[in-house]
């Protein structure tokens, strides 16, 4: 009869146990001790000599897999198959048994076990499972769920860095400076009867305390780094119980990322120098106000790079309010200038071209938006195309001219652009918008769904978006697609944002449409900035609000609010 070694922990052990019991009618621990003491009866010894490579291999494999307690209930059938393929197991095991080795030397188990306990300075004289069977099932081993039997798999999932059978907590979970830390060290070992005494300290410099009673290591670390602590202990299972053993315990304390972000000034002498921040507030038509702010993000500050974001606001006497935000592409070297040109030129063009004709077209069309929606939308669309679409294109042309003069490629000025124009008419507030790139624009009213004026451009991966400077966005159909309008009777706020705001506050395209997410942000703004008729001081507060902490979100941040 032959038996195959399968690779799952519990099954190998059970294989040994039943193997032994079946052939020798003995408990395995007893067998090992018999082998060690050389008092194996002749016929058994003959058998053993024939099969000792198997037994050694089994034992070596056991040790290698660092067995836990056995489950006597595991059925043998789940374990036994043909041993002819044992070669597989042999080549995988680190300790390949050799024919030259005889039983008379060290017992294979203890030797192999010693080889595996690289950190420990001493080893218990008897193996754990031998002790368990010697102590007999007065205290049966704890039950364990038998894993399904598997062939030796080609791809093996992470086998955790298992500690030797004794003390398990050699690699503690990582900690962080300033963050509460608590972990229970291997209590089952430290409180075990065989452990006569143990010492573990040295945590003070890190800011942690170890409680010997509860075996809990806790505290708030004060320094970062990689630390090694020594657990010292004496065990009753040793030959010399006065001798101290040692185990190393490793702990990594991460720094707090907040403390790592630097703030370096950008190059003042650069021809395209731009300030790290900007803010603006103004009273607009019909008792409304505009506040806007833009702040260089932590990732640019860390490297002394420029703010690539920009905004612009124009409050016109004729009742029109124009707003825009733009986000220069991180990889485009002059994008800070691109966003600047886009914002200035676009609003200036709208300011210069919007006229009574436009107002009349809009009024006429919106008058029949309920009765003849299709044609009304077409009229407004065309009007917006000629006003806002043309203005955005003018911005693009300006960038092209600048690039030609430099000279350099247009894409070096790549930038997103969101533009909104709004005016109160008799039929309600008219809001027209143009949107290329990421970020977001929405009309907010508490208790209602936000009205999002378009869709963000995004690819499959983070950072992929479209820019004003890309040829493809100027295809007329594309242009029309990016022009939207809405008519509302009331609204609390019209908000334009770059992705430095939408990423942390909304995270996804779907959440941009969520009234709850909008409430969260607006409630925060009402509480910290006010938004109650003091635009100049509020724009300062808005700038400070832009400094909020959001891990992983360190882009430039820009927001413009008409309320």
């Amino acid at each position: 009869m032959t038996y195959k070694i399968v690779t799952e922990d519990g099954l190998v052990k059970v294989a040994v146990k039943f193997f032994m019991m079946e052939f020798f009618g003995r408990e395995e621990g007893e067998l090992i001790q018999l082998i060690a003491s050389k008092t194996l009866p002749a016929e058994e010894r003959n058998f053993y000599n024939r099969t000792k490579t198997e037994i050694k291999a089994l034992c070596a494999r056991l040790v290698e897999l660092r067995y836990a307690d056995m489950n006597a209930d595991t059925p043998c059938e789940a374990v036994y198959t043909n041993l002819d393929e044992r070669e597989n197991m042999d080549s995988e095991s680190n300790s390949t048994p050799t024919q030259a080795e005889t039983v008379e030397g060290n017992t294979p188990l203890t030797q192999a076990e010693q080889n595996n306990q690289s950190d420990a300075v001493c080893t218990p004289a008897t193996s754990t499972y031998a002790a368990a069977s010697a102590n007999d099932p007065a205290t049966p081993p704890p039950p364990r769920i038998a894993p399904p039997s598997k062939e030796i798999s080609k791809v093996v999932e992470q086998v955790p860095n298992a500690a030797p059978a004794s003390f398990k907590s050699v690699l503690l979970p990582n900690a962080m400076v300033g963050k509460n830390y608590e972990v229970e060290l291997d209590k089952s070992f430290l409180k075990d009867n065989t452990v006569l005494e143990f010492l573990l300290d040295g945590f003070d410099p890190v800011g942690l305390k170890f409680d010997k009673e509860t075996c809990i290591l806790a505290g708030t670390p004060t320094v970062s780094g990689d630390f090694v602590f020594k657990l010292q202990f004496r065990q009753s299972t040793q030959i010399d119980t006065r001798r101290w053993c040692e185990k190393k315990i490793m702990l990594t304390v991460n720094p707090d990322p907040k403390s790592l972000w630097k703030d370096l000034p950008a190059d003042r002498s650069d021809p395209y120098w731009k300030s790290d921040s900007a803010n603006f507030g103004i009273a607009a038509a019909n008792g409304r106000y505009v506040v806007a702010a833009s702040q260089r993000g932590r990732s640019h500050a860390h490297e002394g790079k420029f703010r690539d974001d920009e905004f612009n606001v124009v409050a016109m006497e004729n009742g029109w309010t124009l707003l825009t935000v733009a986000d220069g592409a991180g990889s485009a070297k002059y994008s800070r200038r691109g966003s600047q040109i886009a914002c200035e030129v676009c609003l200036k063009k709208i300011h210069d071209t919007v006229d009574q004709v436009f107002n009349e077209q809009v009024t006429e069309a919106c008058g029949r938006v309920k009765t003849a929606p299709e044609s009304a939308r077409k009229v407004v669309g065309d009007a917006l195309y000629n006003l806002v679409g043309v203005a955005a294109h003018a911005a693009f042309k300006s960038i092209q001219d600048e690039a030609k003069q430099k000279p350099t490629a247009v894409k070096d000025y790549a930038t997103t652009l969101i533009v909104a124009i709004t005016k109160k008419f008799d039929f309600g507030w008219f809001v027209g918008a143009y949107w290329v790139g990421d970020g977001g624009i929405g009309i907010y009213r508490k208790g209602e769904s936000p009205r999002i004026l378009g869709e963000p451009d995004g690819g499959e991966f983070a950072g992929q978006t479209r820019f004003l400077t890309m040829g493809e966005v100027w295809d007329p159909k594309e242009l029309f697609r990016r022009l939207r309008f809405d008519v509302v009777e009331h609204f609390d706020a019209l908000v334009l944002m770059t992705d430095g705001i939408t990423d942390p506050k909304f995270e996804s395209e779907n959440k941009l449409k969520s009234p709850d997410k909008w409430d969260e942000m607006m409630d925060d703004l009402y509480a910290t900035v006010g938004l109650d008729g003091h635009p100049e001081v509020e724009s300062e507060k808005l700038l400070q609000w832009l400094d909020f902490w959001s891990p992983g979100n360190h882009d430039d941040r820009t927001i413009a609010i008409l309320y």
Partner: protein
Amino acid sequence: MRRLPVYLLMDTSGSMKGEPIESVKVGLQSMLSTLRQDPFALESVYISLITFDKDVKVLNPLTEVEMFQLPDIETPESGPTHLGAALEELCRRVDQEVRKNTEDEKGDWKPLLFIMTDGSPSDLKKYRDAIPEVRKRNFAIIVSCAAGAKAKEDVLKELSDQVVRLDTMDSSAFKQFFKWVSDSIGTGNISMGATSQIVLPPPPAEIQVVV
């Protein structure tokens, strides 16, 4: 939060046994320490460590730098180098772990791939079949490191243009290589933008770029 997934494929075949694999371990530890001091890496970089010899082992599934712990890395006595199988497994892991932009969830940055081998793939056909699959996964960088005299650069070039060579396999060389890897991953290099072409920082003296 947007994550930057980084995949490390390390050769653990028999020829790496001894000083080479120990040097790799030291280099990896050093890389982790460096990344932990970089605010962007500490918050956003996720690392997966996959080793290959006869078997492919995912030692660490994609794990944030903050929680990452280097496991024990073992090498068999001898045996083949199944880089092809490793690439296959890599594609499976990427499909499982890397998040794409959806309407509900923000996606990850394009993943990065660093491969280190001291020989050439024993499963050459599988390796070649896997190459187009790897390309489909849209890695922003694929860098292969040919370590030592026996490594075949031409074969590695079939996967990616970015091939570097380490002449020696001692701890200093590996440390430099892994420092270069951390520089490529860290703040200095990853500009938050639509980077279709990530530019690698200049490599240190111990590393020669294979043209």
